């Protein structure tokens, strides 16, 4: 048993001369919350299972840090997974993973909330638990260990990591995390099993040990059924009726991180309905933060952090109904105060170019757009409502206003895609490049990123197979041969990495053993080209007895039980099924701000509607 006392600074310091970027491992950030351990009764460690640079950029964790520390009796600290060089030093020194505020071992906390934001974090979660000295499987832990809670987009199918967690938060965590902690506090003296039983009373929590999957003789999943009368057969995601206030006293890192800036979430959810996009489905309904509140929050963040840049976060920033006056208002208010604003995720239309123009007078770095596919027909299938002709007009506008670098994001392996669609990407990129050269001259740079489509749970394409290796690799060769030369840059994914992501995205509990074996084989940092080990995964596949190819390449039947069917995003499976048929017919589905398509949100959350919702059918 490792000590639960704080690790001495001298002990941590003794490792730092041997690692890259040691500032990741010491804390000391402005606005970090240091509460006295003994004056608080519940100690929560918030974890992002990848390096500091990414973890500090994760806004969900920032929200929960603020929210939990606002409770006088709670203490919340942070931990991230160290980079491999530091992990090696810590293991050699026998030092357990520690939280960055108090330097207490992670194992000393009452609750450990780990982000399960995306599939490439899964092996890192095991590395994190192991480095913390905690048993990997919930079944091997008891009430002397922290209660381990998962949350984030990945929990909309947490089955591949179900064995490692005690509880998953389904949906938006702001309220339910506090309910969870308070419910746990009342039963903290009980054995773990009974603690978890008490948590069944909190809506929006999924406690995997109270559910049992069963399978058909052919291997398909036949049901996931509760094993306890108190466990609900379906868990409906939690939803904040109005967006909770954005944290103001945001952490300011001392060392450079991926997104080193303040953040205001201006909108949650997306009404566009892209058929491949999981975020757009599971974060419904769209809620807009009122413009006045945004302006006031930006001011408060700048005062509390000194940040010189604030990002206005959303899945589709240009969709906020007051975006332009909002930007004008902020720019006017901060005139001469050297504040820059950034708008991630701009939709492909000239309005977006107007907005970007307002934000960067004179400075013209890169402009990013996501046409997703090369042909109009395929764009209709994925419900990306823009024609090539309009796209070219927008590109022209971008070059005319002085941008010289245009970044274009595409996907390949989409349902219904043929080699002709890849030729269409090539043709589109070349036309855009010609426009750029004509308008902006030889400094024009086109950066093309083509990732492989991975079918995700709770989306219209959740029944689709992953495109096979031969198809993807042939298309990657096509692109590489055609998109080369001066002013062109092309990026793509390794197919092996895509396979792992795709398997985990839609897997069931039979993958628990595969994830663990892959980790034991050395798989971790699956999102990092330089650190991951795809070979470790392939060996895990071979020894697992799981029919990986069948899981990846089989088209799911429409009436098949899917591993995430008991977890409800509020969007009805029936709606996705209709949308799937519309896709096959090449039909678009209009933006639902303009007319409700009955996705299910309004019926599943009766009484929650507020003026922030952009669902048009309210009150009916």
């Amino acid at each position, binding site marked *: 048993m490792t000590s639960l006392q704080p690790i001495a600074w001298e002990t941590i310091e003794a490792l730092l*001369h041997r690692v890259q970027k040691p500032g990741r491992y*010491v804390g000391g950030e*402005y606005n970090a919350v240091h509460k006295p351990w003994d004056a608080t009764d519940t100690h929560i460690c918030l974890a992002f299972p990848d390096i500091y640079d990414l973890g500090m950029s994760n806004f969900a964790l920032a929200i929960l840090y603020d929210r939990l520390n606002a409770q006088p009796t709670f203490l919340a600290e942070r931990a991230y997974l160290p980079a491999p060089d530091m992990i090696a030093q810590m293991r050699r020194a026998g030092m357990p993973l520690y939280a960055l505020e108090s330097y207490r071992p992670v194992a000393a906390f009452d609750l450990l909330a780990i982000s399960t934001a995306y599939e490439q974090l899964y092996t890192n979660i095991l590395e994190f638990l192991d480095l913390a000295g905690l048993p990997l499987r919930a079944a091997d832990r008891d009430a002397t260990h922290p209660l381990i809670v998962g949350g984030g987009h990945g929990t909309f199918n947490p089955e591949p990591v179900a064995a490692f967690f005690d509880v998953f938060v389904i949906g938006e965590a702001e309220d339910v995390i506090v309910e969870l902690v308070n419910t746990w506090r009342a039963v903290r003296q009980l054995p773990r099993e009974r603690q978890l039983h008490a948590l069944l009373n909190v809506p929006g929590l999924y406690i995997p040990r109270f559910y049992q999957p069963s399978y058909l003789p052919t291997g398909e999943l036949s049901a996931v059924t509760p094993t306890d009368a108190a466990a609900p057969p379906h868990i409906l995601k939690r939803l904040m009726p109005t967006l909770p206030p954005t944290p103001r006293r945001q952490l300011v890192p*001392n*060392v450079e991180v991926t997104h080193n800036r303040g953040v205001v979430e201006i909108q949650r959810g997306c009404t566009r309905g892209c058929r491949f996009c999981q975020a757009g489905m599971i974060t419904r309904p769209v809620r807009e933060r009122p413009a006045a509140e945004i302006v006031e929050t930006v001011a408060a963040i700048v005062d509390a952090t000194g940040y010189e840049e604030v990002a206005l976060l959303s899945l589709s920033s240009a969709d906020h109904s007051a975006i332009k006056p909002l930007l004008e208002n902020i720019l006017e208010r901060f005139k001469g105060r*050297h504040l820059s604003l950034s708008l991630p995720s701009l939709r492909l239309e000239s309005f977006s170019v107007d907005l970007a123009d307002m934000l960067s007078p004179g*400075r013209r770095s890169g402009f990013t757009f996501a046409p997703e596919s090369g042909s109009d027909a395929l764009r209709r299938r994925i419900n990306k409502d823009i024609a090539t002709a309009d796209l070219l007009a927008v590109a022209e506008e971008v070059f005319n206003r002085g941008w010289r670098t245009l970044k274009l994001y595409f996907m390949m392996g989409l349902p219904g895609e043929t080699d002709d669609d890849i030729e269409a990407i090539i043709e589109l990129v070349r036309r855009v490049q010609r426009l750029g050269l004509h308008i902006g001259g030889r400094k024009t740079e086109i950066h093309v990123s083509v990732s492989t489509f991975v079918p995700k749970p709770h989306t219209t394409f959740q029944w689709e197979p992953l495109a096979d290796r031969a198809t993807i690799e042939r298309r990657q060769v096509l692109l590489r041969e055609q998109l080369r030369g001066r002013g062109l840059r092309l990026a793509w994914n390794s197919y092996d990495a895509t396979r792992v992501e795709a398997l985990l995205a839609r897997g069931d509990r039979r993958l628990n053993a595969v994830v663990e074996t892959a980790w034991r084989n050395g798989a971790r940092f699956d999102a990092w080209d330089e650190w991951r080990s795809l070979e470790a995964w392939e060996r895990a596949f071979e020894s697992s007895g799981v029919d990986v190819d069948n899981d990846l390449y089989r088209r799911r039947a429409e009436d098949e039980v899917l591993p995430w069917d008991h977890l409800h995003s509020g969007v009805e499976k029936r709606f996705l099924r209709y949308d799937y048929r519309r896709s096959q017919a090449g039909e678009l589905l209009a933006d639902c701000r303009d007319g409700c398509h009955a996705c299910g949100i309004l019926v599943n959350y009766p009484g929650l509607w507020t003026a922030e919702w952009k669902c048009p059918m309210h009150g009916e």
Partner: protein
Amino acid sequence: MSDAWRMMNGERKMANEELRMTHDEASGAERLSSISNLPSLRYRITFATQRTLAYVSVLELGKIWERSLRRAGIPLKYGQGYNPRPKLHFAAPLPVGCGCEADLLDVWLESPLTPEALLTALTGATPPDLSVSDIRRVPEDEAALSERLSAAEYRVWLREVAPEEVSSAIADFLDSTSLSLPKRGHKYQGQTYDLRPLVEELHLENAPAPWSGLGMRLRARPGATGRPDEVLKALHLSDVPQRCTRTRLILDG
């Protein structure tokens, strides 16, 4: 005030010429003093960093200072261009892994504040391991800190190595007349430099257990700056747990 402000900026050159024309016979010293009757907007901050802030790069420390000053509501003077940066000049970059006891930073403001007001505003606005010990106004036309810097003193504490070992490594080092080390950075690949003449002083120092201490004074001139980590490398002591602090900057004049 706004007149003075204009004088300090674009119109100072013109003001100089006017002075030269009207007081042709005046000595240089008199001319200077008449300019410095205007309030200087240049301030020199003496500061210390320790523990967590010993592990930041010089660029990161610049950002930490910029944000601290912004949080304090201090009206920083920014440069020109599309992406203006505040005017902050350090005397010398601190190596990653090294804290400091009395480093110097010059900042320029948009409007004058008393040094006391600056100090008060900064209280609570810096990260926990950054502290300010002194702020004073300095003449606008004083030479840049980096130009006046001649040397820097460092204290290094080492663990897992006995003072006798450190002592004999120091003796070997001081016996040598030249010590060739590879230059740092990709663009200098294959090139070497001589560390020995950059080490003005090197000696064993007392340190609390379990540390062994050493002190050094390294030259710090443009193109001839010694680094404490390079000295440790030459002493074959770089791969031991260590705590490095720059204790003093030595300026000319």
